[in-house]
């Protein structure tokens, strides 16, 4: 390409010819412009959601993050740090400042302040919406640097391009998904890059930088536990394989001590680095490394194999005894806390299902299906093993790190759906090595002189010809393979764009469906309901709902909730679950004791919205039953089957949740049974088609209890598509 450019430029007039760049400069220019394009692409591809819907915060957790960011930017850091939130977990409240990872909020608030200082008057919401795409774009730069560090700049570029559009990462970083992961993946990759760099150079400064990267990661996301376990594991592997070097010693020790100290400044993490079992591996490896270094040093001083052996025996027995004793005493005395359930469920995928329903109930904690691997990685799934082959061919310290990162994160991605996100950068890096190395080999084959034309010029060409004669169609085959590679890569790009626009750009607070004529129908029921709460209920009203909607109600409805998505108090959630699954009179007592004024349920029976409360109901029963044995799951099932139709269990048909969801559902038929001319909107037309005879569109059955009377609650508001229904709890009756 460079030679073609020069010949083209040679024909230009003299003044233009001075613009001619050297090959190296051309390469640099190409590289920088490609990187700049990738940067823009990574940002732009995540804007589908803004274009399709509007600039808004998505899903559940981001609403909490948005609310706290708003608080931070209005009240300053000091108040934020000491914030006691009485609007959630009524009547307990929540110490927000001490129970969250502040990295995301601080980042957004700083960006907001920076933009204001540049006299760009943007609302904090726009900053929050665009934080994740901005950091995703920065991640591409880190991926480029990482790829260059472990292979070459070509692989770095490919890695940046792959990571810019990999669906596994996009799923959590589209505009509006203002969640911890958005900045955390950037921090994760940055920490790893800086650490590898520190190991390669053995410089304290890089190790310090990686400690700061770790600090940022700790401040942003609980996934930092992955770093604090992967890095010691890596050190251990290097020790075992005899690749120990003093560069490693410098990098790990500096990073560990400073990183640990910095991490302790985050209140939510606190002393966990010295007290929790999940962090003990790092400390163990730290001490092991000291011992190893000391032995190495003594060996160097002694220069005598026999003496050293006896020395080794003494020290090793001492160290192992002391270490086991310390660990045993620490665990037995409860000083070192045992591993948490989430950690166990990572190591043993079936653990959560048996022991902790609250973790198992979250859909993103389920084991990953093959289809979602394919969906999120596409061709990277095939390039990944090929990349591993290249990695093993050119094994170095940095390579071992990337391989270990790839393999462990792939395992975790198989255990939990949401951890595909952590695997995505590793998969991109390793696949990039495969793609880049393959394409490079193929292009060198094509650019080398044609050997089939004859072995005439020079001894070198003759020698090469002699090797190549075993492959007669090498040139053509290389071209074909290259075309194949480009076809695959373009398919990847198309797939990623499609996935982003179709699957991952939905805010899930505004729902979109395809009507029967292909048009888009928008259901904005959630916001309708939350604004109704904001406008029509007293400011101190307490709303009871299942915990999924807690964050949204506090952020958008500005009302106090009983439980929310921060599932810190299982008993409290179980109480709400118990209320939902009890008969109305029993539920009323519970609601009175919790001071509940309104009950909010989400119902998809009219629109066919499948993640509604009736589908979540069994989890409420399970979580409620886990704390209050009065609630028994078999009471709600018929022969182990979950039914809502005529054959459903009597307790199911009369529990509060069922009543609240299907209250007046029977009347809907008659209302929609009017002549077609009465119908105006497409939704209603659909409803008519499906709703004949009280037909639940999600479950696809006719409901079992059509005649529902409410005694202690009254309907307060139902949104236009019936997705959210709000009931007012009546005050206690007068004594007669």
């Amino acid at each position, binding site marked *: 390409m460079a030679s073609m450019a020069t010949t083209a430029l040679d024909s230009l007039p003299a003044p233009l010819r001075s613009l001619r760049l050297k090959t190296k400069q051309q390469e640099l220019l190409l590289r920088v412009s490609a990187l700049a394009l990738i940067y823009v692409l990574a940002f732009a591809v995540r804007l589908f959601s803004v274009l399709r819907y509007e600039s808004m915060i998505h899903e559940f957790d981001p609403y909490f993050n948005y609310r706290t960011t708003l608080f931070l930017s209005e009240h300053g850091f000091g108040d934020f740090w000491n914030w006691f939130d009485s609007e959630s977990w009524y009547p307990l409240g929540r110490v927000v400042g001490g129970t969250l990872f502040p990295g995301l909020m601080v980042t957004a608030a700083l960006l907001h302040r920076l933009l204001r200082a540049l006299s760009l008057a943007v609302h904090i919401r726009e900053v929050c919406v665009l934080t994740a795409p901005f950091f995703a774009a920065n991640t591409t730069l880190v991926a480029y640097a990482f790829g260059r560090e472990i292979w070459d700049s070509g692989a770095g570029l490919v890695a940046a391009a792959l990571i810019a559009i990999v669906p596994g990462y996009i799923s959590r970083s589209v505009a509006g998904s203002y969640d911890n992961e958005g900045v955390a993946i950037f921090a994760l990759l940055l920490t790893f890059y800086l650490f590898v760099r520190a190991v390669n150079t053995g*410089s304290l400064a890089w*190790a*310090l930088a990686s400690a700061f990267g770790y600090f940022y990661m700790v401040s942003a996301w609980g996934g930092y536990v992955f770093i604090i376990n992967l890095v010691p594991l890596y050190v251990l592997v290097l020790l075992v394989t005899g690749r120990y070097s003093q560069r490693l010693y410098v990098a790990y020790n500096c990073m560990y*001590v400073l990183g640990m100290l910095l991490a302790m*400044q985050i209140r939510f993490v606190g002393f966990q680095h010295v007290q929790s079992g999940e962090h003990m591996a790092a400390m163990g490896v730290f001490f092991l490394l000291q011992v190893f270094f000391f032995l190495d040093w003594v060996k160097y001083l002694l220069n005598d194999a026999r003496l050293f052996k006896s020395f080794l025996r003494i020290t090793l027995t001492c160290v192992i005894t002391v270490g086991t004793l310390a660990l045993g005493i620490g665990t037995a005395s409860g000083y070192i806390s045992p591993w948490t359930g989430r950690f166990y469920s990572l190591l043993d995928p079936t653990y959560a299902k048996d022991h902790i329903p609250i973790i198992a109930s979250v859909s993103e904690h389920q084991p990953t299906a093959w289809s979602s691997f394919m969906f999120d990685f596409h061709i990277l799934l095939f390039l990944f093993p090929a990349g591993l082959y290249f990695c093993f061919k050119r094994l170095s310290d940095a390579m071992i790190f990337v391989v270990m990162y790839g393999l462990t994160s792939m395992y975790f991605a198989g255990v939990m759906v949401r951890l595909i996100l952590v695997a995505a950068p590793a998969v991109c890096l390793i696949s990039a090595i495969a793609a880049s190395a393959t394409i490079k080999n193929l292009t060198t084959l094509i650019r080398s002189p044609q050997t089939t034309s004859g072995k005439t010029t020079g001894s070198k060409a003759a020698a090469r010809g002699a090797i190549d004669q075993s492959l007669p169609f090498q040139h053509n085959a290389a071209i074909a393979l290259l075309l194949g590679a480009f076809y695959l890569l373009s398919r990847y790009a198309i797939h990623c764009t499609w996935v982003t626009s179709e699957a991952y750009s939905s805010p899930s607070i505004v729902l979109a469906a395809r009507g029967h004529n292909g048009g888009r129908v928008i259901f904005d029921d959630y916001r309708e309901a939350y604004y109704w709460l904001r406008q029509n209920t007293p400011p101190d009203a307490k709303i009871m709902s299942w915990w999924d909607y807690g964050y949204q109600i506090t952020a958008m409805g500005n009302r106090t909730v009983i439980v929310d998505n921060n599932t810190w108090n299982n008993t409290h959630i179980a109480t709400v679950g118990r209320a939902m699954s009890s008969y109305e009179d029993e539920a009323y007592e519970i609601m009175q004791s919790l001071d509940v004024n309104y009950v909010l349920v989400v119902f998809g029976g009219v629109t066919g919205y499948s993640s509604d409360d009736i589908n979540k109901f069994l989890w409420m029963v399970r979580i409620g039953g886990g704390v209050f044995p009065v609630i028994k799951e078999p009471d709600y099932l018929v022969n182990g089957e979950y039914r809502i139709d005529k054959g459903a269990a009597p307790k199911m048909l009369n529990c509060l949740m069922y009543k609240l969801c299907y209250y007046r559902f029977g009347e809907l038929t008659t209302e929609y049974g009017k002549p077609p001319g009465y119908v105006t909107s497409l939704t209603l037309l659909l409803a008519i088609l499906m709703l004949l005879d009280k037909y639940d569109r999600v479950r696809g059955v006719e409901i079992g209890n059509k005649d529902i009377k409410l005694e202690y609650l009254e309907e307060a508001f139902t949104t236009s598509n019936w997705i959210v229904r709000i009931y007012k709890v009546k005050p206690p009756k007068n004594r007669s």
Partner: protein
Amino acid sequence: MPRGSSDARLLIQSLSNAYAATPTNLKIIDLYVVFAVATALVQVAYMGLVGSFPFNSFLSGVLSCIGTAVLAVCLRIQVNKDNKEFKDLPPERAFADFILCNLVLHLVIMNFLG
């Protein structure tokens, strides 16, 4: 155990002989490291006596000692002339890195003391 004790004596003797050949600047760093580790041990012993109540204070005390020691060992590795791994790193740069890390370490410690 006469054989064991003679072994130990031989060991210590050859160790001290070998150590005597170390350059003075490295010896100074070694002294610094030994002092830091000893301080950490004293603090741990004190904690055992009076309890660990302001746990952050105890942690910052011990970690400042351990951190100092570890950083000094890193410096020792980097300025050691016999070390082939760090031939390209000038001792000035190593010292500047050391100072920087110590600065960060102790600023954080000050924040953490409580």
